[in-house]
């Protein structure tokens, strides 16, 4: 490291994994985690997200009430020790429903992004690696999908297939496929012409081996970042679809549905809309901040800087 790279005019620097092992002996993932831990925002976000995931996993144990436990004598009560988040118009405990709603939101978020990740990355890989007509055909289809506003497209898909969590997952998944395809393709285009790839090809490596051993691993960092940011938007899209009644159906707890139901009570029961709203804000914010942190850590240039500065 004799000179610091200047932004804008960067030589194609090999990613750290390809550096001589003398530079660091730690496995790459541990180094990444270490760097991430030193970024307070990302670290806190990650911790909060872990907490949210734990809540989603152990929701039924944690929630003081069932999702539909009712007792009309306690409708629309303000937050108290008995009901820290208050109760809704059907006298259900809002804390319990926010906790139980976490599972719904995260399940839809994770599964839809997983769908988009797998399909989008595959399309991006093929388009970027083979180029020419494969690229043209695949990316024009992606452009068409991309031309629709995301939520509008999701609403259209759900409208055709019917409301429900499964269709919400599919709809949000389809919406994010083009984004993953584009990010992957851009990344692959850069990696494809690297010396190590050409060297590998010149000694007769098959396409499959090239893609899986050299191209994909080195094209991965932007995809990982995109995954985290997409999770934020997927949770938000799930809330939007639920709000419109196109996601999980009543009486299942879901943050978007709770927001929709709370509209008529906004002047009498602030807690009804505030707590589900906070849950959405917190989850989306954390995925976004984690995504930012990951970008800093995974970007080779930034990473070099951070690793260097940390020594």
């Amino acid at each position, binding site marked *: 490291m004799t000179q610091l790279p200047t932004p804008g005019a960067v030589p194609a620097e090999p990613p750290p994994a390809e550096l001589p092992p003398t530079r660091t002996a730690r496995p790459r993932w541990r180094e990444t985690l270490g760097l991430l831990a030193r970024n307070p925002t990302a670290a806190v976000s990650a911790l909060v997200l872990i907490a949210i995931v734990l809540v989603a996993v152990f929701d039924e144990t944690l929630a003081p009430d069932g999702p539909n436990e009712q007792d*009309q004598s306690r409708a629309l009560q303000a937050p108290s020790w008995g009901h820290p988040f208050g109760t809704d*118009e*059907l*006298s259900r405990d809002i804390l319990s429903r926010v906790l139980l709603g976490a599972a719904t939101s995260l399940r839809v978020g994770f599964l839809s992004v997983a769908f988009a990740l797998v399909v989008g990355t595959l399309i991006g890989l093929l388009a970027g690696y083979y180029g020419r007509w494969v690229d043209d055909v695949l990316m024009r289809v992606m452009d068409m999908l991309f031309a629709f506003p995301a939520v509008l497209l999701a609403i259209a898909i759900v409208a055709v297939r019917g409301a429900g969590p499964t269709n919400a997952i599919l709809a949000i998944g389809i919406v994010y496929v083009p984004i993953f395809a584009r990010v992957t393709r851009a990344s692959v285009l850069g990696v494809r012409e690297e010396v190590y790839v050409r060297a590998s090809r010149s000694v007769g490596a098959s396409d499959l081996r090239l893609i899986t051993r050299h191209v994909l691993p080195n094209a991965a960092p932007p995809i990982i970042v995109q995954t985290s940011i997409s999770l934020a938007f997927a949770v938000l899209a799930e809330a939007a679809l639920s709000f419109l009644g196109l996601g999980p159906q009543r009486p299942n707890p879901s943050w978007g549905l709770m927001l929709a139901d709370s509209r008529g009570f906004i002047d009498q029961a602030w807690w009804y809309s505030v707590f589900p709203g906070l849950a959405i804000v917190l989850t989306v914010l954390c995925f976004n901040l984690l995504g930012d942190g990951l970008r800093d850590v995974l970007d080779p240039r930034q990473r070099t800087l951070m690793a260097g500065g940390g020594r």
Partner: protein
Amino acid sequence: MRTNRLLPLVTAGVLALAACGGGDEVDTGGGGGGGGDDVLVAAVSAEPDQFDPHVTNAYASFQVLENVYDTLVVPNAQDLTMEPSLAESWTTSDDQLSWTFTLREGVTFHDGSEFDSADVVYSYRRIIDEELSNAYRFETVADVTAPDPRTVVITLTRPTPNLLEQIGAFKGMAIVSEGAADEFDLQSEANGTGPFQLESSDANSTVLTTFADYWGGAPSIDGVEFRYISEPTSALTALRNGEVQWTDNVPPQNVESLEGDDEVELGSVTSVEYFYLSMNYDVAPFDNRDVRRAIATAIDRDEVTQAARFGAAQTNQTAIPEGSPWYTDYAPFEPDQDAARQLLEQAGVETPLTMGLMVTDEYPETVAAAQVIAAQLEPVGIEVEIQEEDFATWLARQGDGDFDAFMLSWIGNIDPADFYENQHLSTGGSNYQGYENPQVDQLLTAAATEVDPAVRGDLYDQAARIIVDDVSYLYLYNPDEVQAWAPGLTGYEVRADAAIDFENVELP
């Protein structure tokens, strides 16, 4: 708020939807009074689909037409019994097959023409001959004749004790001037005898001006503007800050807090509307009477009513509200989950069983009520799957019989025939559940032609009890008709039939 009334809700919805198809140009109605300052601004939830009283089924239209047209007789505000309006008096023949109406003198239409018996014959013949929305109300009418300008005779094929209710319960039976359908575009214009005349209508509001030559004496205000505000909270805010002086679009959850509010005057009366749950007789196990009775026993109506209306309603196990002379005091179901489980066992069905419950977001209180019902049925072993549909899909599925159960309301009107015939006769046009009980058929048919009110009431009583016992409908509650106005506004009365009459209103 509901969009339709008078015709049972569901049918009304279909027709209103159909009516929306035509591109009705709304232009300004003809002539009439200048714009004074003393105009009452009323916030209503929906825009009228059109102004032809004989065609429309939309409640939003009748809110306006109530003030523009008259009928031969009219229900009074207190107990909805029929009083003279355009007819001053009437007599019936001994065989009950001929009714003679003597018409009021000195009545003029908004266009200045004199009102006489030819207008009545023209209006009724138009409804009958063109088979318009309310033609079924004239089912027993053989002929309508005008022996002289002050007399109208209605002859019947069989005794019709509720003829006055049929021709006077609402402005769907309004008297228009002879030849009005050719002379005016009744979709957007009006020529009635009422206290106000239709001035103009657009996408934001409908404006009425006072009719100076009104037979009952011209109203003291200069006119009425109906402004459409669909969001209840916005309507209430508009009332609070003086933008409007009256609204019927009051959010039920606010009723309690408004009662002690000095800025708003609140009027409320139990309405003739009723909410119910209906189960499909063609779908097992809901064809089993014990299963239906188990569900009726498991449901706690107080809780449902509290959640759906925040207490602004009366629970009821029959259709007709308490306070009506036709009320049937019968409430056989006590909420009891053990008894419900026992009934299910007795029916021999395997629990847990699943029941799809169809509701529509067009009537949000059904969505709230369904969630309470789901919670109440779960412990007895019935999994309720709430199916929330848009109203068009809801209506289509109801029509196709594609449901386990659904929830909605009817506006029952005044006469008991309006509450039971269409819904529970085996041949009833709105008997979507498929209820068939020869005894009920016989009772309802006999009641329809029974002249003695006491005997007639008794027949409907018996029919109602069987309907409740069989759970043809699972009746839930009669909602309150709640309206709010500015303090100081006088001469207005909230009516159980939800008719909105501004004739005697005086502004502060």
